[in-house]
């Protein structure tokens, strides 16, 4: 167990950063609408699939020639994944939520509409692409990016870190996700639109009276969440090498757990929650066997909601 631990931590941070990216979508929408966008997991799946389609089109047969070319292909695929994610999220809001908002429908109606939309989106892809897993073309090959055995840590704690080698894949996912989250955080904090989002999150009615166009803010919020969700889909698909119509479900519910763990509505909380959950489930998977990993996540969700529903860092977008 002790020799495995650092591996688990690396894998956990990589998975956790993807959860955090998706969790931002839940948290942002919750902030402005007090609504759990159950269909966000399908936005993620759309991003993952469009990444696959673009990569299959541009990457030559047999995979990319070099690591640099592979990275370039991945960057090329990131743009459509983000665009498709954003477009899917905005379309979702228009079709499934806006009519209900106009009618002032009760909360139950939103949840049912969200579930229906999720089922519809996932199965549209199933009808189009079939039920099987599809493989991503090979882009960046898996390499050891960092050998902790050669570093300071490895020399001084050879038992713990001596044989730890961090994969480039985990590192890329982690860094890419962190950069995107940083960008979002700064956007929400500094831009004018970001101020609008925070205003609506604090008090929609007053924000409306102060001249904030609520409908526009809601659309932009879905767009932002969708862009990040789409990017997360690409990273997820690339790092596991496969995607399919139902791929959104588990990461979606885990990202939701992450959002709740960090305090739903709280942007930085989603980041912390995602990383913590990724770490926790990987370590728990190491202790009890991989088949119990998902159960561990669900248990965290239930425990947090029961004992600390406001999450570790408090609800709502900060002022």
């Amino acid at each position: 167990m002790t020799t495995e631990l650092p591996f688990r931590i690396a894998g956990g941070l990589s998975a956790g950063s993807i959860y955090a990216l998706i969790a931002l979508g839940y948290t942002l929408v919750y902030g402005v609408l007090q609504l759990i966008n159950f269909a966000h997991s399908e936005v993620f799946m759309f991003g993952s699939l469009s990444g696959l389609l673009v990569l299959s089109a541009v990457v030559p047969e047999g995979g990319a020639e070099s690591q640099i070319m592979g990275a370039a292909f991945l960057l090329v695929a990131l743009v459509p994944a983000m665009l498709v994610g954003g477009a899917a999220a905005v379309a979702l809001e228009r079709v499934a939520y806006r009519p209900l908002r106009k009618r002032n429908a009760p909360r139950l109606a939103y949840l049912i509409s969200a579930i229906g939309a999720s089922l519809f989106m996932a199965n549209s892809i199933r009808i189009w692409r079939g039920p099987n897993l599809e493989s991503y073309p090979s882009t960046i090959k898996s390499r050891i990016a960092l050998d902790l055995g050669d570093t300071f840590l490895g020399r001084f704690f050879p038992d713990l870190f001596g044989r730890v080698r961090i994969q480039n894949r985990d590192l890329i996912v982690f860094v890419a996700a962190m950069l995107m989250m940083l960008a979002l955080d700064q956007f929400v904090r500094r831009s004018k639109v970001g101020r609008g989002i925070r205003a609506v999150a604090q008090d929609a009615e007053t924000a409306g009276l102060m001249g904030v166009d609520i409908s526009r803010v809601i659309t932009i919020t879905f767009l932002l969440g969708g862009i990040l969700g789409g990017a997360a889909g690409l990273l997820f698909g690339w790092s596991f090498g496969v995607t399919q119509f139902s791929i959104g479900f588990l990461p979606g519910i885990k990202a939701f757990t992450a959002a709740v763990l960090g305090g739903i509505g709280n942007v930085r909380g989603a980041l912390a929650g995602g990383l913590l959950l990724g770490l926790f489930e990987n370590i728990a998977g190491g202790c009890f066997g991989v088949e119990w990993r998902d159960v561990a996540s669900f248990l965290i969700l239930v425990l947090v909601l029961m004992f600390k529903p406001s999450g570790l860092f408090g609800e709502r977008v900060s002022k």
Partner: protein
Amino acid sequence: MKRDLQSSIRIAGVAVALLMAIVLPNFVSIAAQEVFVLIASFALLTLGLNVVVGFAGLLDLGYVAFFATGAYTWAILSGAGPTKFGFTQTAFWEEWGFWLILAFVLVINMGIGVLLGSPTLRLRGDYLAIVTLGFGEIVRIVASNLDNLSGGAQGISGVPHPTVPVVGFGFGLNPLPYLYLLIALLVLGTWAIRGLDRSRIGRAWVAIREDEVAAEAMGIPTLKMKLMAFAIGAVTAGFAGVVSAAKINFISPPSFDIFFSILILAAVVLGGMGSIPGSLVGAFIIAGIPALVQLRYSRFDEFRYWAFGGLLVTMMIFRPQGLIPSKRRAAELQPESEADAVVEESTPSARSGTEEKA
């Protein structure tokens, strides 16, 4: 006077429908009889979920878990599972086992309902939805990993068919006896749930659904009432589970996935939340039409979830009260009068603002 006439017409209608349900299946093909059994067991599930979602307003997305516990209870205790129990080998158990388990599921599922409900039902609506979804998945994952008890991913095959005690008549593969058993359970369930709906308990559910804080302030023991709805739903699903396991005589974890929960929800929503006839009609449409179409067009299965997902959204936009609305529920879900429409374009919390602070 007029009221008497109306109610006697209604009673006559129900009697005719029941008679048709009993007589008609005798004259159709076995394949069609199988479809009727499917519809009837599905109707039992919608009837139960309607209590939870329709009456008490609690969105349960893991409802299939209770169906699973019912099915596994019979599969394991019948002696078909990998773990054998001494009592399952006796002739007495062969004759009475199924019926005893059918009664025992009432206790076990009520217990599980209360066990799952008491921590989770304190949560507000959207959190409840996702936690129940999580529980549904936990039950499925546990079932696919407890190899010694539930047969793991392979499931349990050879689950015995029931036998009528004393007479010694075996149900076997013939769909009709199962259909009659399910109809009997449906009638019993409908009668009991209708009674509850019209009692103090039913009114308490309405109050909780409309405004939980106000209900609490009026002295309604909200948690207890919500637990009751949850437990009743659980028991109904448990019955359906036991009968289905005995009918199909094979169960495995993939049959209890989240999509099945959503399908049941779709039937409740389609028929009309809070309406008993509605949930029966919803079950007929959601379970029956695909199965009947399937007899002719075998690829329809692929489109089923897609169509019903779209249906849920469409219903919420255009007819949230369902096909056969309950009067009370329709008033809640319909667009309100012009006076209320002024607050339009607001967030969903504006209306359920009280719920927010709970």
